[in-house]
């Protein structure tokens, strides 16, 4: 159990280095095992956005936190692809440049994982193959419209 856990952490760390610097357009991401390899060992996340010094996670901005978390999720998905993944407004805090890098990586991962993405971001919508619009009637009932893509 322990050996396979350490192997997984190592593989996800390798993937995280790549997803982090691709999503941030530079910088360094690392995953480190803490407290030894025993059963109570944890996982430290190191995130160093481009042009910044190494700092602790609580100093990251709102958008940097969201992008770091997405980089970690995408790293796990590239090591152990889940058949599908639902993302509910994970791009809400991202600026325009980061949304585009997020969309592009989503597209690359969608070869092996299906994504259902709930979003208000135009750039994310443009990357989808199918688009559903949800409306709420005066009667408090939600309805679904299949929209054609822009």
């Amino acid at each position, binding site marked *: 159990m322990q050996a*396979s*856990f350490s*192997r*997984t*952490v190592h593989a*996800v760390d390798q993937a995280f280095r790549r997803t982090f610097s691709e999503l941030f357009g530079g910088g360094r991401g690392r995953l480190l095992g*803490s*407290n030894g390899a025993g059963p*109570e*060992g*944890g*996982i*430290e996340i190191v995130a160093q956005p481009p042009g910044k010094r190494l700092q602790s996670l609580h100093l*990251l901005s709102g958008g940097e*936190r*969201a992008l770091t*978390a*997405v980089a970690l*999720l995408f790293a*796990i*998905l590239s*090591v*152990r692809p*889940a*058949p*599908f*993944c*639902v*993302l*509910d*407004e*994970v791009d809400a805090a991202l600026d325009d440049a980061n949304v585009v890098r997020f969309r592009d990586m*989503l597209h690359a991962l*969608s070869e092996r994982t*299906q*994504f*259902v*993405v*709930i*979003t*208000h971001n135009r750039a*994310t*919508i443009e*990357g*989808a*193959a*199918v*688009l*559903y*619009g*949800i*409306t*709420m009637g005066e*009667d*408090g*009932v*939600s*309805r*679904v419209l299949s*929209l054609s893509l822009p």
Partner: protein
Amino acid sequence: VRLKRLYLHGFKSFATPVELCFDRGITAVVGPNGSGKSNIADAIRWALGEQSYGSLRGRQASDVIFAGGPGRAPLGMAEVSLTLEQEGESLGLPFTEITVTRRVFRDGESHYLINGKRVRLRDVLQLTASLGPDYTVIGQGLVDAVLSQRPADRRGLFEHAA
């Protein structure tokens, strides 16, 4: 394995039956505030066997059943079906299409079905365990929750991936 179809009837704001078919790649869901988008994410988690009503923004089981609206009476049941398509038998069952159905009634009774046959919750959880439950649905506002966890609490995420 891939996600083919989602069917909702009586689940939260979906009083009338709706069906969404999913593409191989990326499906985007859009709409105004309060229209029902996150309710769709909740429906998927619920159908996969989610037991904690708090993580579905509810306080009790009946919070997922359509509670009525202007000119609309409350319903007595909520039902969600999720259809998956598999190559081979990676989900451990001899069918190409597998439909997981969950129902709950106002009196609290719960039903779980696989391809129309009543099963136990344990059977559903066994089926969905291989889908990577910890990272299948990332809820609204929760994307960076993993950064706030203590290092030891992050093990779960990796053990599932192991």
